[in-house]
């Protein structure tokens, strides 16, 4: 998400950066470009206008024109204002209520409420060690309840059964009672998708809200929504006391304008981003970091956090020890590294968060596909234990066998071995220099990849 907006904005910004002086004229021109970039990213028009007006006010003021580097100053103003619209810092779920803390989901049809319920249940259960129960009040869409039940089983949380013939409010009341009985910490209530113009359904969710008295009421919105995000967000915010927003389907190439619109219009923080179909694909939303990402400055903080969370610390430490002792880095270690990289969402996921990547042409990004990494793992898997420890053994006929076994060509095996050589050289340097740290190892790993990445700015 956000890439195209990033591209547009950062090229505008780039041009300004070098300028020694800014005239009112070129500020006007840049602002027009900023406006179009935002509109094309599906930011709702009223929000665009508000944003551009504020930037303009500050830009033509003393702040920018008098600064030594006016271009930089304007960039800062745009970044500040984007951050201001999106909120300052991440706001976590507030679950400080007498248990069960009730979380109510609301949104249009197909926004991704049910999937989000499952992801949220998993996140609260695994990361915050809460006892979670989920219940579906969607008595309208065929098989909606069955969908939640299946997902609840997958993520391993309690499911309160309901049936299509029941009244949603009754279901909700019974679920709360059951949650109390079973000493559940958090009860997440899924609801039917509804149009904001459907008075009967909006009234139903108001009744649900009154019956449940939830501590969190989350509005779920599809990141691909267009200008209508403004209307729907307003209608839902008017009907319900929302406490936060979940932005879903952010793993597509939507430019994320809906995030800005919804945040600006409801005034409620975006608390989570849904970024994939798997049940672990829910990330806390960090507005300041996203604003940086939009301006092409990367989101290194999230990357570091993700590395910390997903890397297998034991393996990493073993490797570090091994390298320090001057032992050889072998193909088994290389496979571990590659697998960890895949765990972190693969190359594409990593690149997304690195500074300056917004400007890479799409073609280069395409090249960094994870198929290559998978193939490398397959090649290593086709070797015997002995070969993995002593790659020097691999000569003509062994290489041919490995290629056959992994469904690749001998040339691919050669390429892998060459990359292995480079990596092991790097590792031996670490050993001597005493430098450790996963970031450096990772960078080494990536430099070795075919089609490599251009040097970072």
């Amino acid at each position, binding site marked *: 998400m956000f890439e195209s907006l990033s591209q547009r904005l950062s090229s505008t910004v780039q041009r300004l950066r070098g300028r020694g002086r800014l005239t009112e004229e070129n500020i006007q021109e840049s602002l027009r470009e900023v406006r179009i970039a935002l509109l094309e990213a599906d930011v709702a028009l009223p929000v665009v206008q508000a944003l551009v007006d504020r930037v303009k006010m500050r830009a033509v003021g003393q702040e920018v024109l008098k600064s030594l580097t006016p271009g930089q100053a304007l960039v800062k103003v745009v970044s500040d204002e984007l951050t201001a619209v999106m909120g300052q810092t991440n706001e976590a779920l507030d679950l400080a209520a007498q248990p069960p803390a009730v979380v109510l989901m609301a949104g249009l049809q197909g926004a991704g409420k049910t999937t989000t319920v499952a992801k949220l249940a998993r996140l609260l259960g695994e990361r915050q060690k809460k006892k979670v129960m989920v219940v579906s009040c969607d008595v309208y869409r065929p098989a909606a309840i069955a969908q939640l039940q299946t997902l609840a089983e997958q993520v391993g949380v309690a499911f309160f059964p309901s049936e299509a013939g029941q009244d949603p409010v009754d279901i909700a009341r019974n679920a709360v009672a059951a949650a109390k009985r079973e000493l559940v910490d958090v009860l997440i209530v899924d609801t039917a998708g509804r149009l904001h113009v459907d008075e009967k359904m909006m009234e139903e969710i108001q009744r649900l809200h009154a019956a449940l008295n939830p501590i969190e009421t989350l509005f779920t919105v599809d990141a691909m929504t267009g200008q209508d995000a403004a209307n729907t967000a307003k209608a839902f915010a008017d009907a319900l006391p929302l406490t936060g927003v979940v932005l879903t389907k952010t793993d*597509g190439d939507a430019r994320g*304008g809906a995030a800005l619109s919804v945040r600006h219009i409801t005034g409620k923080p975006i608390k989570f981003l849904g970024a994939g179909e798997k049940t672990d694909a829910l990330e806390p939303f960090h507005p300041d970091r996203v604003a940086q990402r939009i301006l092409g400055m990367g989101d290194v903080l999230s990357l570091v956090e993700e590395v910390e969370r997903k890397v297998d610390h034991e393996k990493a430490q073993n490797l570090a020890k091994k390298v320090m002792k001057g032992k050889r880095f072998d193909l088994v270690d290389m496979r571990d590294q590659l697998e960890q990289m895949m765990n972190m969402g693969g190359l594409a996921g990593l690149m997304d968060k690195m500074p300056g990547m917004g400007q890479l042409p799409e073609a280069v990004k395409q090249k960094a596909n994870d198929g290559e990494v998978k193939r490398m793992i397959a090649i290593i898997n086709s070797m015997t234990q002995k070969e993995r420890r002593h790659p020097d053994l691999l000569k003509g006929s062994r290489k041919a066998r490995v290629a056959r076994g992994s469904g690749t060509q001998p040339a691919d095996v050669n390429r892998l071995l060459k990359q292995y050589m480079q990596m092991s050289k790097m590792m031996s340097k670490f050993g001597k220099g005493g430098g450790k740290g996963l970031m450096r190892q990772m960078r080494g790993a990536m430099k070795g990849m075919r089609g490599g990445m251009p040097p970072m700015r």
Partner: protein
Amino acid sequence: MLKFWKKKNDPAADKREAAHGDADAEAPRDEAVRDDVATPAEAETEAPSRAPETAEAAAEPPRSWRERLGGSSFARGLGGLFKRNPPLDDALLDELETLLITSDVGVTASTALVEALRPRVRKREFVDAGALRQALRQALIEQLRPVQQPLDVSARQPFVMLVVGVNGVGKTTTIGKLAHHHLAAGRKVMLAAGDTFRAAAVEQLKTWGERNRVPVVAQGQGADSASVIFDALQGAQSRKADLLIADTAGRLHTQGGLMDELGKIARVLKKLDPDAPHEVLMVIDGTTGQNAISQVRQFHQAIGVTGLVVTKLDGTARGGVVFALAREFGLPIRYIGLGEGIADLRPFDAEAYVDGLLPAETDA
């Protein structure tokens, strides 16, 4: 939303309906859509009703395009804009551009439409705002007319329709409605539960199958989608069905692997029928913004989309992005979805669509 529009436009609405009654005689092609123009009174009583059950849904008199689309902010905005009978100047054109943009028509398309009108306004070609409205209507209709190509399923037997799209656009619901639509036309319909990924998607399609009383071929969650649809086509051939509608899992257009899977489905079907699938129907959520363009581009590349369905047009979103889609791809728009009832699917009609957004007559 209906009430707002009704209050202001009631007398005019009657007039318009009368006018279209005449038009029907001349243009039988439009009958299907225009037949069900309900009287305003009827519409008001049953306006935002929801129909969870088949019986109710079938009994509910379908609402017309104009009534549904007429309440949109787009239509309201445009209607209001012209009602004031403002002076013809650049401010009016700018306001028009703004309105088009807020309807998701897109910056480029909106600017192009308005810039085409600007010199004509300067040359004083239009006597009043009403004439300008006519010109804009014409421009809008002309953009959509080439993509108004109804789907003919009688050419093949069984006719294979593959329904694709991103997550949560309403594929399965659309299939339910499509099945109803074609059953009503006297065809023998079969469904294939090709969404083997999402939890309970198979059950959802089966429910639609029961409502319509049509057979659903399914293997359950986690099965190979291509194999389910292959089986279904074999079944459809041996049972001599007229139409096979195959569901697929929602997938974001950026996920290469999942997009390749669509290609596989098409390849596998060709083993049974070299021309299958005869229609690749892509469903687009009407509330989607400019991202719809990227969606269509990727799906088109992966599997060769042959028709579009725009859903969820019964809210305040107008799917202005169809103008951009028509410009860029020219893919036929087959149907639009106007609600959750089983009968809420209409063949696409460019003029009716624009009528709903920007009525022909000026309101007195």
